[in-house]
């Protein structure tokens, strides 16, 4: 099975046997009825992976084994688990140069506070794993759990049980314990509890149990779980002006870091819109009229998460069925037909007011088995609330500002929230009891030492610039010439008749800033057209010929124009294009900075090089990979690949493909890499000695698939490139959304860690103690946060032939964060990743097909 297929199965691997006795999926359109799970007792709620363990273990040897190295059992468990960490990935063992140490040494040491907490266990702490069988065999998991939990023999043990596997923190006297109990009907059931394994606290299995324990604890603090995070709706931050409430909460996880078991908590907010889907639809109809209502409505709603009022569930909108009305009937589980109206009245005492609303369709992913069809649920728009921010809402500047003001916590505010959480846990009787029975001790907040790597110089054409602040050097290089660019002689401006008056001013501005940066801008041919998309397109089609270097469009609005023009000029007729909103050109007083930005973008699109940093390695190719879901068909994924073309790392080659798959694992890397190597050869008449690939967009739990499926693709294209000495490859997984945060404490206040801070100890992946998870990784802070708290980027080197010292790898990564030409400053990820992101975003949002290869060595997607 390919890595990709395996990933698809992740979290769904269940035994078919577990299905027996489950309710059937008789009706395709049953709204969730009050099914057993609605009444479920959280005592038994394991994360997905735990359930997956049940049947596997039945076949496994009943003898006790210690530890879990090489155990197939653990591997299987690991594969089905979906959580923050990718367990069981051990890449560092193969990397000889970092076997002893993965820490660097350059830079100035800095003491950092973190959001990590020590979780102490007694020295000899062990987790005891038992296997439980029932005679007679009971199919119902709930019944099995109930019988075991109610048994007096186990009542004072801390336990976690999924119906088959039982974890205890204290060993039972006997290896095999026979328990007898009675069901409510008076039937005697014999439970046999057999010790199968004794797990040290370093075992990945323990991590799962710890996470379950914390889940319970947070529920005890009256927090609600939404997705993976926990929120407190009883203390909302309300922004009534925008119909929003923000629920404060935390993303938490327990993991092994270098030598310790740590609890990580980061503040998180859930955005709730105080607006039902029906109200949203009605408003949308008011706004845009009816002609393209259905299409727009689907575009904006599909993929959003909704919350229903009558139960505690969230659903994803997968489709909207306009043909079904609340007065239609569906089949209940017992086979009877009922209308939605009656159903909601009977079941929840809810009267639907609008009998013409369509229904929202949500696919429930089966948690039981991967070969069952997903269940379809119909939801009433009137009863669903929108969560999160997406679509049109995000273009409401005022709203976004209001949200940002609430959400953006200063480092100090963040630390205070964490302190309160810890305090709450320690004050709550039940929470404390839970921790104590498991033998866990909640320790102090951790601080560690990081390093601030030296700042970089920006190399311009005839000037080396040491910026005042690496966050933004636009002022520092204002008078400097860019490295190289061809002059722009033959180009077009397409604009509407209305925009005519702004063009002259803009053009002269553009020519002025262009000449000061060394970019000669000639006079364009100006084409005036009517204010509609068709007219714009027609004008472009008529006037663009082979000699045209660039087309600039002054757009009256963003709607449609951008997508249509980009689509045409990126694939049908490959010419670099620059779109500008006429509104932007009307902003008096900002004309110079706007013109500068546009001039820089235009020169990039023509193949220009803006600036460089010193790259000590000769013959190094860097590449970035990112993925993005297509805007229209959520089944399509756009995979983008951007690789540098010269040793100075100022020119870029790009490829992009749309692939039909439900995972984010790239299928086409071999083609991309081979293409990039050929192009490199064309430019440099040799192959690169070293290749470093930064892979972004790897989801939780996909790490293993990337290692097993993507790295071999890259390796084989390198091996088959035809070079005499095979290029050496490194692959680094880049993750922007990691939980740890780092702060500096100064004068009794807490601040963001400085730019260039590297953390490669203590908060990184575990060391020798946990051989299964030994990885080579580091955190780097390469972007500035003026307000709020900066989020470090996590780099995990999963493959490394280059043998660069950790120090060099870290500094090279930092250098690459300087090279994104759309921003005169540092960014949070290496430039190739950001380019790949830009490319995939453009294709996913506007073009929806592969861009023309003729543009491949230009930054046309900026």
């Amino acid at each position: 099975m390919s890595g990709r297929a395996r990933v698809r199965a992740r979290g769904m691997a269940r035994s078919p046997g577990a299905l027996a006795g489950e309710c059937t999926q008789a009706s395709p359109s049953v709204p969730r009825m009050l099914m057993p799970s609605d009444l479920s007792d959280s005592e038994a709620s394991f994360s997905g992976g735990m359930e997956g363990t049940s049947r596997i273990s039945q076949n496994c040897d009943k003898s006790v084994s210690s530890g879990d190295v090489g155990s197939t059992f653990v591997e299987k468990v690991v594969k089905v688990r979906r959580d923050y960490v990718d367990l069981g990935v051990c890449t560092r063992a193969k990397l000889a140069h970092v076997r002893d140490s993965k820490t660097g040494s350059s830079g100035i040491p800095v003491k950092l506070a973190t959001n990590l907490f020590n979780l102490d266990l007694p020295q000899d702490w062990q987790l005891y794993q038992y296997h439980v069988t029932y005679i007679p065999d009971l199919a119902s998991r709930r019944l099995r759990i109930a019988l075991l939990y109610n048994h007096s023999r186990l009542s004072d043990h801390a336990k976690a049980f999924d119906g088959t596997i039982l974890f205890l923190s204290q060993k039972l006297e006997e290896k095999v314990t026979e328990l007898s109990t009675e069901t409510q009907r008076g039937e005697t059931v014999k439970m046999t509890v057999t010790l199968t394994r004794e797990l040290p606290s370093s075992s990945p299995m323990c991590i799962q149990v710890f996470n379950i324990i914390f889940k319970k604890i947070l529920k005890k603090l009256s927090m609600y779980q939404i997705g993976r995070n926990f929120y407190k709706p009883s203390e909302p931050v309300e922004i009534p002006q925008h119909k929003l409430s923000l629920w404060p909460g935390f993303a938490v996880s327990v993991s092994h870091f270098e030598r310790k078991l740590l609890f990580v908590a980061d503040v998180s907010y859930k955005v709730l819109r105080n607006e039902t889907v029906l109200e949203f639809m009605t408003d949308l109809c008011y706004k845009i009229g009816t002609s393209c209502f259905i299409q727009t409505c689907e575009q904006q709603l599909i993929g959003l998460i909704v919350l229903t009022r009558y139960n505690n569930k969230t659903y994803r909108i997968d489709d909207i069925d306009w043909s079904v009305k609340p007065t239609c009937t569906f089949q209940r589980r017992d086979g009877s037909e009922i209308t939605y109206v009656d159903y909601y009245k009977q079941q929840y005492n809810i009267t639907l007011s609008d009998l013409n609303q369509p229904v929202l369709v949500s696919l429930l992913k089966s948690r039981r088995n991967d070969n069952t069809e997903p269940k379809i649920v119909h939801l009433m728009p009137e009863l669903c609330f929108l969560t999160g921010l997406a679509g049109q809402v995000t273009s409401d500047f005022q709203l976004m500002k209001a949200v940002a003001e609430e959400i953006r916590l200063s480092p100090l505010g963040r630390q205070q929230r964490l302190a309160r959480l810890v305090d709450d846990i320690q004050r709550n009787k039940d929470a404390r009891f839970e921790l104590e029975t498991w033998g866990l001790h909640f320790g102090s907040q951790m601080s560690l030492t990081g390093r601030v790597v030296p700042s970089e110089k920006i190399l311009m054409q005839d000037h080396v610039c040491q910026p005042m602040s690496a966050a933004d050097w636009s002022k520092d290089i204002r008078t400097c010439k860019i490295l190289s660019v061809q002059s722009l002689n033959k180009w077009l401006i397409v604009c509407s008749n209305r925009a005519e008056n702004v063009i002259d001013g803009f053009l002269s501005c553009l020519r002025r800033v262009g000449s000061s940066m060394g970019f000669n801008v000639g006079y364009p041919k100006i084409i005036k057209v009517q204010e509609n998309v068709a007219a714009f397109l027609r004008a472009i089609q008529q006037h663009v010929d082979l000699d045209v270097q660039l087309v600039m469009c002054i757009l009256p609005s963003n709607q449609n124009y951008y997508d249509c023009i980009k689509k045409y000029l990126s694939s049908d007729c490959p010419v670099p294009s620059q779109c500008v909103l006429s509104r932007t050109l009307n902003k008096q007083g900002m004309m110079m900075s706007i013109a500068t930005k546009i001039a820089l973008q235009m020169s990039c699109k023509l193949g220009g090089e803006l600036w460089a940093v010193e790259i000590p390695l000769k013959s190094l190719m860097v590449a970035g990979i990112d993925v993005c879901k297509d805007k229209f068909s959520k089944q399509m994924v756009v995979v983008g690949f951007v690789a540098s073309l010269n040793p100075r790392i100022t020119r870029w080659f790009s490829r992009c493909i749309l692939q039909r798959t439900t995972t984010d694992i790239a299928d086409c890397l071999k083609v991309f890499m081979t293409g990039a190597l050929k192009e490199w050869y064309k430019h440099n008449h040799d192959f690169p000695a070293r290749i470093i690939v930064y892979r972004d967009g790897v989801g939780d739990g996909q790490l293993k698939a990337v290692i097993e499926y993507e790295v071999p693709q890259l390796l084989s294209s390198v091996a088959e490139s035809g070079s005499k000495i095979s290029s050496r490859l490194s692959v680094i997984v880049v993750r922007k959304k990691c939980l740890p945060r780092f702060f500096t404490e100064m004068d009794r206040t807490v601040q963001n860690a400085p730019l260039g801070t590297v953390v490669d100890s203590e908060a990184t992946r575990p060391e020798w103690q946990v051989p299964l998870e030994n990885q080579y990784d580091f955190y780097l802070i390469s972007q500035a946060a003026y307000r709020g708290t900066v989020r470090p980027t996590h780099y995990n080197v999963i493959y490394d032939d280059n043998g660069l010292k950790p120090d060099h790898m870290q500094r090279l990564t930092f250098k690459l964060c300087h090279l994104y030409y759309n921003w005169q400053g540092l960014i949070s990820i290496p430039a190739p990743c950001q380019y790949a992101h830009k490319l995939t975003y453009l294709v996913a949002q506007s073009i929806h097909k592969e861009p023309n290869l003729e543009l491949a060595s230009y930054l046309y997607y900026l």
Partner: protein
Amino acid sequence: MTFKRVTESNMDDVGCFSSEMGRTRGFCLVAPDFLIQSLRDISEFFVSRRLGDKMEEKNMQVADLGCGDTELLRLLKIYPCIQLLVGVDIDEEKLQSNGHHLSPFLGEFVKPRDLDLTVTLYHGSVVERDSRLLGFDLITCIELIEHLDSDHLARFPEVVFGYLSPAMIVISTPNSEFNPLFPIVTLRDADHKFEWNRMEFQTWALQVANRYNYSVEFTGVGKPPAGAEHVGFCTQIGVFWRNSGGAPGPCVSQQHDQHVYKAVYTVSYPSLQQERVLKFELVSEVLLQVERLRLWHLRTLREQKRGAGTVPKEPSVAPSLMLDLFTEAEKARIENSPKPFCEGSRFFVPLQRLLAYPRLHRLPVDEERMRSLLADSVCLSSDGSAVKVDLRNTWDWEPDDY
């Protein structure tokens, strides 16, 4: 519910249902759907009976004795008229583990109830007297009495009917005449001390009713299969009303506080009776309505500009869901209120107009209260009589004209 389902119910079905986990409530031979339905019937029955007389009933207090896994309480909390829900059980651990099921749903924070609701679970026995349960509108004892031994059964009416003396009592218990239809026939639950036939139950019920001045009606849930109608319902139910002539409550000597039950869990629901919640709801509704009116106004302007001069038709398309469905009375109320108006680039909607819309009309506020609640979140006109917004926003969607 077919008979087949009932008789063939096996461990699976039972196991699916959490009541198997405990012992206080024993519909155990009955499929879970069925139990849910019967509990639903009971609550529905109660509410309709009760509301039949007084539609505007508020602040009702309901207790479920022997609440076990709290399913009935979960069903009852959906009724807006209930403001206090109490569960009592002797199994403290069960109350503790089930408490969180009664906490408000996430959606209930987004769209709060109109009236406050407090849910409390007490650990205690039904034969003990606790004054906090006095004066309730309804007390339910679902599948409870058959778990009482003869001593407790004898004391039960004295406490529930005599001391607590609620306006209405619902008592359900298995009908033993139905038992032969089950594959295994003994008692339905190992903890049952007895199971009565209809005669036995009704005799007991009538005696109790007479003694404490209640009237009683009998019903049941779980219809027998065709051909076996004579056995009656699977579960028999007695519904007791306190006679109006009877003692309205316990006598004075018993009035002093007697707190023997231990509160295990308690939760208050967000509701519009709370100022913070009301304010949020009001501001959101006002802004929603103002936004709609603004967009409507813009549309009208666009249509006029186009020269047709006609008032735009209401959107009448495929999604005919659109627009609020007003009753004639509501329409009249809206028509009779001051109209929105424009001054320069500002758009004004009078507060009175806003209050005419049903969704604002239902909120417990008058114009004065509304003004003070809106004051710091919404921009009002200088005399405070209308909401003021910009007529055009930069992010407005301007449809393309092809």
